[in-house]
C-alpha cells in the first residue's frame, strides 16, 4: 500500500512536470511565431520606407495629416497594425507598430536626445544642430520601427533602427 502510494505520488509529479513542459513548449512555439510575425512586419515597413521618395518619408509617416504628399489624410502615418499580434493593454494608440523619427511626431528636430538613434545630430547638412523644424529640408533621417505586442510570454517589444538618405 505504501509502495502504491509512493508510485502514485511519483506518477502525479511526473505528469505534472510533463504538463508544465507542454505548456512551456507551447508558449515557446507561440512566442517564436510572434517574433517571426513582428520581425516580418518591421522589415516590411522598413522596405516601404526605402521605396518612398526620400523627401516624402517624413511627411508620409509623421503624426500630422496636413502635410501628407497625396493630400491631407492620405498617408499611413506613424502607426500600423500587425495581423496576428495583439495590442498591449496600456498601448496609447491601439496599434502594435509605430514609426518613430526624431521629434515630437509632427516636427523633425535635431536637438532630440536619443543615443540609440544617434541623436542629437545635424539633419540638414548645414553644419549646426539647432532647435528648428527640419521636416522639409532634411538630408538624413534616423528612423526607429517599434513593434510592441501582448504575447504568450507577456508584453514584448521589438525595435529596428536605421538611417535613411537620398540614394540617387
Amino acid at each position: 500500500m505504501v509502495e502504491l502510494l509512493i508510485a502514485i505520488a511519483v506518477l502525479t509529479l511526473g505528469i505534472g512536470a510533463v504538463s508544465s513542459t507542454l505548456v512551456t513548449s507551447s508558449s515557446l512555439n507561440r512566442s517564436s511565431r510572434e517574433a517571426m510575425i513582428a520581425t516580418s512586419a518591421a522589415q516590411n515597413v522598413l522596405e516601404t520606407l526605402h521605396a518612398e521618395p526620400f523627401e516624402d518619408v517624413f511627411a508620409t509617416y509623421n503624426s500630422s495629416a496636413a502635410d501628407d504628399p497625396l493630400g491631407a489624410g492620405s498617408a499611413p502615418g506613424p502607426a500600423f497594425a500587425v495581423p496576428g499580434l495583439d495590442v498591449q493593454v496600456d498601448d496609447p494608440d491601439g496599434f502594435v507598430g509605430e514609426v518613430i523619427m526624431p521629434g515630437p511626431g509632427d516636427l523633425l528636430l535635431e536637438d532630440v536626445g536619443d543615443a540609440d538613434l544617434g541623436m542629437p545630430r545635424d539633419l540638414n547638412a548645414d553644419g549646426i544642430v539647432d532647435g528648428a523644424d527640419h521636416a522639409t529640408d532634411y538630408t538624413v533621417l534616423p528612423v526607429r520601427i517599434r513593434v510592441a505586442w501582448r504575447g504568450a510570454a507577456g508584453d514584448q517589444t521589438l525595435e529596428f533602427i536605421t538611417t535613411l538618405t537620398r540614394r540617387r
Partner: protein
Amino acid sequence: MSRCAAGKRAAAGFTLLELTLALTLVGVIAGSIGLVMKTCSRALRAGASGAALESNLRRSMDFVCDRLRAASTSTLVPLTESPFSTTQIDFQRAVGGVGPSVVWGNPERILFEYSPGETDDGVDNDANGLIDEGRVVWIQNAGSANETRATLCNWVREYFEGEEDTGVDDNGNGRIDERGFSIDIEGNRAHVRLSLERMDSDGRSIVRTLERTVTFRNQGDDLP
C-alpha cells in the same frame, strides 16, 4: 490456533470492494498516463511539424528577398505589376560596380514547380493529403550548360492562404488569385508571398504563411 493458520487467514484474497477500487484506480492512472503520453507525443509531432514548416518558410522567404533586394526592375522578367502576380521570375543581382556602371551577376530564376508526382489537376496525385502542392526552386544560369538548381522549400500550397482560383480577390488583400508562391511588382519594390501547408500525423492541416515587401536597391541601365 497455529500462527500458520492465522497467516493463511490474513492472506486470503481481497474483498470485491478492494478489487473494484484497485482496478478503478489502476484504470484511471493508466488512462491518464496514456492520455498524457498521447498528448505529449502528438504535441511533439505537431510542434515539430509546425516549427519545421515555420523555419522552412522563414529561411525560404529570407533567401528570396535577399536575392531580389540586390536586383533591379531593369533586370526582372516578367515585370508583373500589381494586382497581378507571377510564380516565376528571372533577374540578375548586382555583384559590384565598375566605374559608373553596375556589374550584373549570372541570370537567376526563382519559380514555383509542382512537386514530383503532382500535376495541376485538382487531385491529390501523391496521396499525401494535399492537392496540387509544389515547391519553390532557385535556378542559376537556367537553360545553359552550367545550370544549377536548389529547392528552397517543399509543401508550397497551390494558392495563397485564403485565396482560390475564382478570378476575384478572395482574401481581400488587393491581389487576384495569387498563388502559394507569388511575386508582384509595385514601382521599385516586390511583394513576395509564400504559403506552406502539410498534414500532421493525425491528418490535420498545418498552414504557415508569410508576406514580405522588398525594395530593389539597384537601379539598372534603363532610366525610369
